[in-house]
């Protein structure tokens, strides 16, 4: 990933029309990119153009637009695969609906084929429900044991018992970055440890794709799941990447058109990967949009985005702690390396839901709640936290609006 110049936030913002609207009469400060990032107009335009000039179903028609649609769809696969450092995109990139579906696909195919009683899957306490519940459902069906890596005082992974947890494990499934804590996990090291123990590693990359380098070959991982809408793309599309030789042996996921080579009344012959996992008409326009999002991210540079968000996170943590001192509890590692642009916090005396409501009244969009990570929230001992999260279009003025809104909240609830 080549880095060009540092991000010019004001220039970047011009690509995001939604940011020029007002919310409750104020400039909108969108601080909820961990839930869903905004699409730049290039992405919307690419999808519009596809629908207005090209749309046809893929892999079937021989007419010109159908050929074009197929070519656009398949070249999106290549673009996205190249972005992820996939050695063989045409065989390794599976289009799904979102990260959740990618992980369910993995659990239902690889999991059911390879895991049973006496086997173990290693997760962590900071996982999103999407990387817990599919494995729990698998455990109910197969008896596979689920083990959880704990957290240390800084809310990073506690790796002190990693070797014990890996003993007998066949899979490590772990997030690259916590959607609550902002903790960035040492995926490369975990991959090495998993492989030493004879296990494979799947990475939930939903939070990382836009913000962190994620070359699958460099990380040395086996599977990766992503959501388009968390990386400046549209909703309704996700990615499961798997090493070609691993995907090649998996049974199908959903059945239907597009995933077969042949069907008779008494049997069917599945298509090779990745089509084997893409039953039904795929998200074609969304694939076109996601490929455009990837080109947009590459033009900004993932490293530049990461550097920008790191600096902004450090600024936000400084401002929050210097303004509210003991009146705010921030859940996550200290600023610096291994800390992404997600800040979850509790403001003393003001419930997260009220915090979000008051911030909304001044145009600041944050999210209250458990952030689909209830095991983590139980570990932290909090029912609900407010969360501010950044994207390449977030700036110091957004952080300042956040802090000013929080000051209003404390005044109101004093």
């Amino acid at each position, binding site marked *: 990933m080549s880095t060009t110049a540092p991000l010019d936030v004001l220039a970047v913002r011009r690509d995001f029309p939604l940011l020029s609207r007002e919310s409750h009469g104020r400039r909108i400060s969108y601080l909820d990119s961990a839930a869903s990032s905004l699409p730049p107009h290039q992405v919307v335009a690419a999808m519009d153009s596809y629908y207005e000039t090209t749309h046809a179903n893929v892999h079937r028609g021989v007419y010109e637009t159908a050929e074009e649609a197929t070519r656009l769809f398949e070249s999106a696969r290549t673009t996205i695969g190249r972005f992820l450092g996939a050695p063989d995109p045409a065989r390794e990139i599976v289009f799904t609906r979102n990260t959740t579906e990618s992980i369910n696909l993995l659990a239902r195919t690889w999991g059911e084929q390879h895991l049973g009683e006496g086997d173990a899957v290693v997760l962590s306490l900071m996982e999103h429900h999407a990387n817990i519940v599919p494995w729990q459902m698998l455990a109910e069906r197969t008896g596979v044991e689920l083990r959880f890596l704990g957290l240390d005082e800084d809310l990073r992974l506690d790796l002190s018992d990693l070797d014990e947890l890996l003993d007998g494990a066949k899979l490590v499934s772990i997030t690259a970055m916590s959607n609550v804590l902002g903790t960035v996990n040492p995926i490369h090291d975990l991959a090495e440890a998993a492989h030493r123990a004879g296990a494979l590693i799947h990475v939930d990359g939903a939070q990382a794709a836009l913000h962190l380098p994620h070359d699958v070959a460099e990380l040395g991982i086996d599977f990766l799941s992503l959501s388009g809408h968390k990386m400046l793309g549209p909703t309704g599309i996700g990615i499961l990447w798997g090493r070609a030789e691993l995907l090649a042996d998996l049974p199908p996921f959903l059945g239907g058109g597009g995933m077969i080579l042949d069907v008779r009344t008494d049997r069917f012959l599945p298509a090779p990967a990745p089509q084997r996992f893409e039953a039904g008409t795929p998200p074609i326009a969304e694939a076109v949009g996601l490929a455009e999002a990837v080109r947009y991210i590459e033009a900004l540079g993932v490293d530049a985005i990461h550097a920008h968000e790191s600096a902004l996170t450090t600024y936000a943590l400084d401002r929050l702690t210097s303004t509210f001192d003991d009146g705010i509890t921030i859940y996550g590692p200290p600023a610096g390396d291994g800390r992404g642009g997600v800040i979850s916090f509790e403001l003393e005396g*003001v*419930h*997260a*839901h*009220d915090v979000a*409501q*008051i911030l909304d*009244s001044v145009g600041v969009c944050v999210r*209250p*709640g*458990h952030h689909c990570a209830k095991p983590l*929230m139980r570990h932290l001992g909090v*029912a*609900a936290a407010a969360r501010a999260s950044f994207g390449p279009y977030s700036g110091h003025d957004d952080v300042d609006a956040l802090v000013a809104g929080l000051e209003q909240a404390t005044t*109101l*609830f004093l």
Partner: protein
Amino acid sequence: MADLEELYREIILDHYRSPRNRGELTDEAALRAEGFNPLCGDEILVTLHVDGDVVTDIKISGQGCSISQSSASLMSAAVKGKPVAEVRKTIETFKTLMTVHEAQLEDSGDAPEPEPVDLRSLGELAALQGVVKFPMRIKCATLGWNTLTQALDDASL
């Protein structure tokens, strides 16, 4: 901001800061029900004593936002010492308040109240009117009430 001030009226903030009838009745005779709002993690435990047909005591515990906690606190003050039939009526009135169309809100404040006791309790409860303008918060406001309803239903009262 005007809407926000209407949401966070002083009486609501007061009941949030100093909730009434806070705690739990732990004896066997106490009716109890738990309520959850899975979206925001709010939880509430309502315990109450019904002697004859009167709610003689009620305690609220749990945790949540200012709206869910103050609404439950206001509710406890409104129903304590009241006959069950009247409590049921208050619940109904409150839930109507929470579903009433915004345009009708103007009128409801001037509506004549039947009894002095109701006037006082509904008067305080009317402070929650502002919630209607924030649809996501209606579930917060009704959590305690639905939980009380559950406790009464479970006891066939």
